[in-house]
């Protein structure tokens, strides 16, 4: 079904992916966000990643909460089903959806208000359950849609547009996720598509909960001097600790040929994520070391970016629950209903 139409100029020479689709096919309706909003850049990166992964459009389910960030599922993959839910509760909806149909690709989009204030409990518990989804946290340090209040990710000392200073310690989604045992933790910057796209691809391929925390400046309420989530501040203080390269399953893998600092992690579907540590010795498979490094950089006022941690073999929700491989929505009723004979048998015990 079409949303508000976007001027649809088709470039005949646009690149096509394996499904014969162009990147345009992965777009959605026209964004209604402020011009320059970081969220729009993330939308573009998502679009590109899905395109490059040759993902069938209708096999994707996109979910969100409420906020400017949560509006963005309208702006990509218009031929995927979407669910713009209520504030802070997207994780539970995604969990239930995934429980019912494990075969779709899930992408949840949320904001720092949506995930770290009202939705903090659900966010943490979705991590614990390792729900198989890409969780995109579009982090701008403020509540954009309600006009610029500090969110829980606002840094100590960051100043609001009207001047007040935040003094409470921020909730940092990446270190929180590491603490909670998340199986995939990445951070990036909306302004760095080169870093973001392979991270999104890896996250979509990961089996389990993949947190992608993206600093995504709010041009209207949090892009001024004194803000630590502005374009300028993020450009200056972002610090890539590891470079990521995503190699799809069918590509030839030139794994061990690289420099010594490269590691490769094979995903459950056979695709490979290659890492090149920027910070000497950084090991994205060592949770506690990753945490320590993050905190060290944070103490210096720097924001660690990259695919910070991955544990590709962790159990996901379905492994915990030992559900059948077939999506539950596809199991025929005959296999679900035990029938009249069983009912009689059962009841013979209830006397």
């Amino acid at each position, binding site marked *: *079904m079409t*949303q*508000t139409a976007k001027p649809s100029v088709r470039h005949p020479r646009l690149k096509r992916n394996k499904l014969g689709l162009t990147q345009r096919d992965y777009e959605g309706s026209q964004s209604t966000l402020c011009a320059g909003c970081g969220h729009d850049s993330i939308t573009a990166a998502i679009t590109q990643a899905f395109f490059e992964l040759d993902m069938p*459009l*209708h*096999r994707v*389910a996109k*979910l969100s909460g409420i906020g400017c960030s949560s509006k963005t*599922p*309208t702006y990509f993959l*218009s*031929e*995927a*089903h*979407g*669910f*713009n*839910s*209520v504030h802070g*509760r997207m*994780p*539970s*909806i*995604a*969990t*239930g*959806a*995934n*429980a*019912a*149909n494990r*075969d*779709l690709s899930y992408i949840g989009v949320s904001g720092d208000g949506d995930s770290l204030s009202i939705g903090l*409990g*659900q966010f943490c*518990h979705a991590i614990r*359950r390792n729900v198989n989804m890409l969780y995109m946290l579009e982090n701008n340090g403020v509540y954009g849609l309600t006009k610029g209040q500090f969110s829980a990710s606002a840094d100590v000392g960051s100043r609001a547009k009207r001047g007040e200073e935040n003094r409470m310690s921020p909730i940092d989604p990446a270190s929180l996720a590491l603490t909670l045992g998340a199986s995939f933790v990445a951070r990036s910057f909306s302004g760095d598509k080169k870093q973001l796209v392979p991270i999104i691809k890896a996250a979509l391929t990961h089996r389990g909960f993949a947190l992608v925390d993206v600093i995504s400046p709010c041009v209207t309420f949090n892009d001024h001097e004194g803000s630590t989530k502005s374009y300028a501040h993020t450009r200056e203080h972002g610090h890539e600790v590891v470079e990521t390269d995503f190699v799809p399953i069918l590509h030839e893998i030139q794994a061990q040929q690289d420099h010594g600092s490269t590691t490769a992690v094979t995903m459950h579907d056979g695709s490979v994520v290659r890492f090149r540590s920027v910070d000497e010795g950084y090991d994205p498979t060592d949770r506690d070391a990753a945490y320590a490094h993050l905190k060290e950089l944070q103490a210096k006022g720097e924001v660690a970016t990259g695919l910070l941690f991955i544990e590709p073999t962790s159990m996901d929700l*379905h492994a915990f*629950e*030992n*559900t*059948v*491989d077939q999506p*539950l*929505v596809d*199991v025929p*009723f005959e*296999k*679900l*209903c*035990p*029938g*009249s004979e*069983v*009912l*009689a048998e*059962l*009841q013979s015990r*209830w*006397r």
Partner: protein
Amino acid sequence: MDRDSRDRTDDFVVTNDFVVKVATVNGTGSASANGMLMQAIFRMGIPVSGKNVFPSNIQGLPTWYEIRVNKHGHLARNPDVDLMVAMNPKTYEQDIAEVRPGGAVIYDSSWPLDEELFRKDVLFFGIPLSHMCVENFKGDRERILMKNIAYVGAVAALLSIDLEVIKGMLEEKFSAKQHLMDSNNVAIRLGYDYATEHFDCLLPIRLEAMDANRDSVLMTGNMAAALGCVYAGATVGAWYPITPATSLMDAFRSFCAELRKDPETGKNLYCVIQAEDELAAIGMVLGAGWMGARAFTPTSGPGISLMNEMLGLAYYAEIPAVIFDVQRTGPSTGMPTRTQQGDLFTIAFASHGDTKHILMFPADPGECFYFAVKAFDLAERFQTPVFVASDLDIGMNDWVCKKLEWDDAYVPDRGKVLSAEDLQGMDAFYRYLDVDGDGIPARSLPGVDPKGAYLTRGSGHDRFGRYTEDGDLYQDVMDRIARKIEGAAEALPPPEVRLVDGATVGLVTMGGCRGAVLEAIELLADEGITLDFLRVTGFPFCTAVEEFLLSHDVNIVVEQNRDAQLMRLLLLETAVPKSKLSSVLDYRGAPLSAEVVVGGVRDRLGLVPVEAG
């Protein structure tokens, strides 16, 4: 209740019509002993009911179990105790005071009973249960457990329960555990023999085998509802533990563990998630419902309150969901282990803004099963949350019910769900378009076909599913939803109506009040007061309900809450004038008794009680 309502034989012994109450301490194993007692009577073919009155606590506080035996099948709670099995010294005083004159008390005579507690009008049977158990068993835990079994033996002797029946039960239960079977048998005999040997004066009450339970089984409403979920093909359950709803999901899980394993892989054909709270539980249900799974959550009042926001989302975005509200005494935490019917208003109009939800009111465990199945059909057909509102009494107590039946020809009513072929054959798919004029649009499921893609949202949308802030387009959808929900009235299970010749007064009720109200109707009939009976089974109300109300001069609505919630719903949602409505309320947390209804009806009709003849 008037004494005379009991049939007495010439020698003043009442057969199969009395109340036994057992007073113990919770966490000591008395619950299973009491269950045995009830089960034995059931197996003797006698109509029986058992009500567990337990504290919101794990161990060490007073707890009671009330067994009512009634050959006519009146199984509502009856507070008029014939025999008190007083096993808890802390509550001796109130327990002994509760016994009706002429009744009896069994107590543990290992220690002497305080002189002041004796009553002249009551028989006292002292049995040195603790002493006997100390002598016969080893270890504190076993002694405590076996004391319970021993009083079962004593009661069996006094009421003439067939010992073979009890032995048979023990054999089934402990077939794999010889040691336990042995101790239980010893304990039973201890009590039984002591009683037979020491008490030649007989109780004024007695059991005699009947054949009333041939087609019946014992079950709780939560068990039955869970089984209904299994049979309806529910695959996703999400919940947060809460009394008295927890056992519903426990039962679902254990039924599924037995009946829902993939034969090839041994993997689960279901997914049950213990959510972090009720907001998440209902969220999971909506996510699964959106995907096309039959999904449900059992909860109670506090959980319903927490689900409010999501329920509005489900109503407005039109997502199927089944919610079991096993009601307990509110408001707030209230009395978590006491029953009530206090959530009607909350569930009928849950969430801010204009909403109205489909409700079902099962009267007993049997209906919990059938209504559960129906609830999934209705939820999918009307694409909206459906509440099955039972209560603690129905949900957690064992009831004697007609055996459940299943029609293997049953096909789930999935409602208007479009297949890939359907979608491909359409010019365009619009999610909220009322093509058939019944207020119900067709829905598409994610993953099926790109043509079915749309964005589900709780924000303003038009009939095409597009975001809107246009008032007319918004109204269009809201009006259709209102129409859709009205349409559910006739699709719900029909109300139960019993008409008597010449009655001008209707007695109206719902859910677990059924038994007490029907019994009251019989009792009042004996006094010459004829009453018609209406049991409401669902909301929105169907025309049969409205017609009943309109056709009576007075309708007395009997329910278990303070604010007459059912009566007020009837006032709001049918054409009945106020002048025809009146109500009888009991909201003290115990299952309703006929006594309260009789008193209430007499009072509403301005009658004085007839003298006991």
